[in-house]
């Protein structure tokens, strides 16, 4: 039996109360002052690019990042209390907790002027707000799917569709096999025909690279078509 994204109630992903808002800026604007144009290129002239790596718990996000990163994946943390005030409407998390949002990420120096960062999304649904920061300005997203637990990625797909972020579906082969054929999974995910679905082994660098190439191609097609 395969789960279908269309079977779920539409409210499965909470409508973000902060769509389009800049939480990090808000959290950081201690003196109420907004950005003073941080985008002026420095002499170093390095362009950072980022790709978001999403998927359910244990779908292979960190493995994916690790397979292509030139550094051992690092974990960056932000305390939940900074952002939860007025954000976490679910009420599941008390602002008194010291919960930390942790994100694993890796880096790939592609040229003297281009660095690609791969950010794994925080696993739990209550960290949706963190996804806004990760997704803003990103090339796009790779949604890793464990075909034995397809429903785990529905939330991520909903999120990227709502944000109109280019994404590819990457079916991670565990033990070398897919639990369901690609077409069956595509149908269950109910993704648009133009969304690439690739099969990969997240441990394999070539596999990971192919997924990133598919994503970049898809992002170009989306942008060119506009």
């Amino acid at each position, binding site marked *: 039996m395969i789960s279908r994204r269309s079977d779920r109630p539409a409210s499965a992903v909470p409508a973000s109360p902060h769509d389009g808002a800049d939480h990090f800026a808000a959290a950081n604007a*201690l003196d109420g002052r907004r950005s003073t144009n941080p985008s002026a290129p420095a002499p170093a002239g390095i362009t*950072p*690019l980022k790709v978001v790596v999403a998927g359910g718990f244990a779908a292979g996000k960190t493995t994916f990042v690790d397979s292509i990163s030139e550094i051992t994946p690092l974990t960056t943390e932000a305390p939940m209390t900074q952002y939860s005030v007025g954000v976490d409407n679910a009420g599941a998390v008390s602002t008194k907790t010291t919960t930390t949002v942790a994100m694993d990420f890796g880096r790939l120096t592609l040229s003297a002027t281009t660095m690609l960062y791969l950010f794994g999304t925080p696993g739990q649904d209550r960290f949706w707000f963190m996804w806004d920061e990760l997704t803003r300005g990103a090339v796009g997203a790779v949604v890793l799917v464990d075909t034995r637990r397809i429903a785990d990625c529905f939330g991520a797909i909903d999120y990227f569709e709502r944000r109109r972020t280019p994404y590819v579906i990457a079916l991670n082969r565990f033990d070398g096999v897919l639990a369901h054929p690609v077409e069956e999974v595509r149908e269950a995910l109910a993704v648009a025909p133009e969304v690439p679905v690739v099969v990969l082994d997240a441990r394999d660098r070539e596999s990971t690279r192919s997924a990133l190439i598919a994503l970049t191609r898809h992002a170009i097609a989306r*942008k060119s078509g506009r």
Partner: protein
Amino acid sequence: MSAERRFLRPFALTQGRAAAVIDLPLDAIVTSTDRARHLAHRMVAERARIVQLCAEPHSIAEIGALIGVHLGVARVLVADLMASEFVELSTADFDDDGPDVSTLERLLDDLQTF
């Protein structure tokens, strides 16, 4: 008010200075200047570590992870170092919906030849 206070506490490292805090993307690349590296021995520990780390370019996210501070703290420390012209920042000049087509095409070339 109490919410603000709760928020401010992690920033004790920044000596309470809130000026020069700007919206630093977590993938903004930080590089320290020669002058900063000469003066690093006179800086407080976290600032000195950032200056030394960023002799090679590092992102805000990497700084947070490698110095062992939360992202928000890393942002404030870097903003502070920027204000003193101890570090230079390189960020992508993209819209929220990501890089333009020519940047994406360069990325595609890089990934294919990588």
